[in-house]
């Protein structure tokens, strides 16, 4: 597999050939197939793709929060040198939240309705022995609340007394509680209205810079990803098809799928043009297409595309693509 970067020192998270399957009544679903990427300290990365492309699966696999019928078939997840795939459950529990935490999709439901919000954060702190006394715990939570822009008076309230935006912030505060090295944010703003979304995004960028945290930002909304991330990974049908610096991927997409995603957006400036959409639907992961999984929908597909799955290749400047016929377009305005 090609090296993704030359500077090995500040690489925090290195995912190598990660493959994960679900076993269902109908058969095995290949949800994550041979995914590899790297994340440096303080860097933020976006993972983008259609619904069902496997981005949330990657997130849950990173924290090893898989249901019983799922199994990691192969691959490694190196977090600060430690391979998470091999860890037993006991050790994994210590890693969870302390080194890598998650902000869930539709975070309103991530809070248990019968306990106070503050208590739920304190629970995480106590579980990882971050605090010794009740006062310490209280102070920590107050600091966290202020950090995410919540009034500390709300600590003793219940989730149903919070608004949607406030709940989201609370969940972010909870994710930050144990000072993790990486935070995985799974569509954290999708359920919110646009203005709140905007504010929250800005604050998250701020927080990330302030705390020098690494972040993996998952969304189907490219505009949001481009604003927040340093690097972007594009996923399709369980595979990573393109990977590179944010403005590179955004302005010069290499993979036909990425191009399709980008050009589905109208541009405010520039000439009017017809919106191009991708014909067809994402494949059924029970029986994924052979070779390159995008080939049934790809306008440039050739015979070889159906035969072999193209590996991720470096096209220069650390911009990788898994395609035999990468595009040569520029979306710069």
């Amino acid at each position, binding site marked *: 597999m090609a090296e993704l970067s030359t500077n090995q020192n500040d690489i925090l998270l290195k995912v190598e050939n990660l493959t994960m399957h679900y076993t269902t009544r109908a058969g095995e679903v290949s949800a994550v197939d041979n995914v590899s990427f790297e994340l440096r300290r303080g860097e933020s990365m976006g993972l983008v793709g259609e619904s069902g492309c496997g981005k949330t699966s990657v997130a849950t696999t990173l924290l090893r929060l898989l249901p019983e019928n799922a199994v990691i078939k192969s691959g490694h997840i190196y977090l600060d040198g430690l391979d998470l795939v091999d860890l037993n459950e006991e050790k994994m529990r210590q890693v969870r939240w302390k080194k890598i935490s998650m902000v869930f999709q539709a975070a309103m439901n991530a809070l248990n309705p019968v306990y106070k919000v503050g208590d739920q954060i304190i629970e995480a702190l106590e579980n990882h022995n971050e605090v010794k006394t*009740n006062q310490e715990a209280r102070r920590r939570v107050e600091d966290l609340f202020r950090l995410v822009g919540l009034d500390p008076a709300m600590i003793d309230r219940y989730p149903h007394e919070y608004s949607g935006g406030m709940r989201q912030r609370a969940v972010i505060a909870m994710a930050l509680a144990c000072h993790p090295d990486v935070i995985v944010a799974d569509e954290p703003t999708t359920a919110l209205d646009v203005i709140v979304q905007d504010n929250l995004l800005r604050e998250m960028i701020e927080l990330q810079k302030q705390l020098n945290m690494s972040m993996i930002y998952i969304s189907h909304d490219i505009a949001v990803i481009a604003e927040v991330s340093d690097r972007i990974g594009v996923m399709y049908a369980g595979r990573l098809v393109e990977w590179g610096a944010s403005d590179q991927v955004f302005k010069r997409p290499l993979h036909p799928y990425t191009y399709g995603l980008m050009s589905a957006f109208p541009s405010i400036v520039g000439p009017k043009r017809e919106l191009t959409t991708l014909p067809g639907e994402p494949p059924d992961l029970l029986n994924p297409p052979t070779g390159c999984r995008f080939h049934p929908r790809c306008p440039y597909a050739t015979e070889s595309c159906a035969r072999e799955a193209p590996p991720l290749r470096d096209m220069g400047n650390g911009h990788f693509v898994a395609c035999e016929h990468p595009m040569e377009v520029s979306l710069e305005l």
Partner: protein
Amino acid sequence: MRRFIVRRIGQNILTFFLFLTLVYVLVDAQPGDFADIYLADPRLTPTQRAQLRESLGLDRPVLERYLQWLRNAVRGDLGVSFSNYPRPVIDVILERAPRTIVLFLTATIMSYYVGFLAGKVLAWKRGGFMEYATTIVGVGLYTVFLPWFGLMMIWFFAFTLGLFPIGKFVDPVVWRRAPVDANFVFHRMIFSAFLGSTILLLWTSFSRRLNPDQRRPARLIGFLVVLVGIVGYWIVSGIGRYAWDILHHLVLPILTLTLVNFAGTMLLTRNSMLETLREDYIMAARAKGLPDKTIRDKHAARNAMLPVVTAFVLAVAFVLDGGVITETIFSWPGMGLTLLEAAVVQDIPMVIGALVFTGILALTAHLVADVLYAFLDPRIRYS
């Protein structure tokens, strides 16, 4: 929350009056007078009979009788029991009620606790055989004919194994030269149990304020202190063995009633847990790195509990019915047995008294369940 309780109590009082009215209608609807048997004594002359009738107020119109009865009932005067003549009905009730309440309360709490525990564990480990077996046993116990089951329990535990007495409240041999009477001992027992649990409850909520590593030992110490305190008191008081005798007689009836009722709770808890486990906050709890047991007990079970408490309201009647049958089989001298005996000899004042008692008990249990639910679900409490 306070308003909620006050409103519910108000509703209860209203329902209670409605209940009393219906009871009176029922009694009045029967053919003939309720005093027919009492007055059927052939030695009474017609004049005497008429006089007695008048003194009992049987010649007045219905509305007047009803209001009079209502007035008396509220003051606690429910008439005189024919079969226990000359004891007033209220007297008999006050004597026998605690026994039924103890049976009902203990059996309900235990069956809920066991059912909940079993359902919780069952949902967490979805093992095929265990699930099947427990469901079958549970349903079997739920539908078994209670008198028959009670008899089997007696036969097995009392006759064959000789572990427990066959029935009744006390063993006359043990009590032959007792300095105190059984009611006294029983009331003391209730009081000490009540005091003990209140102290434990207060201590548990206090221990929440302590620092994390102090909490567990504190609770353990508290529990031991209360336990030693109660047992110590009884041993020292000299009447300990009488209390023990009563306890000994309590075991089998409570066990029977508990076994028959726990299955419903168990199945409901299991289903409720399965639904709760699919919620997002369970996944979040796992992500936080919490141990399995904490997730199951603190997060899942606490939410799964809510529908179960709701179902409790429906189950109250069932447990009360079961109590009547259990008291009969085990000759446990509570209100259930009293009701039955009075019914058989047509001691109508006593029957009504027992019915009123049952109504109060049912309404109170209903109220407690509602308040408990509001307490458990903050969404109701703070809305």
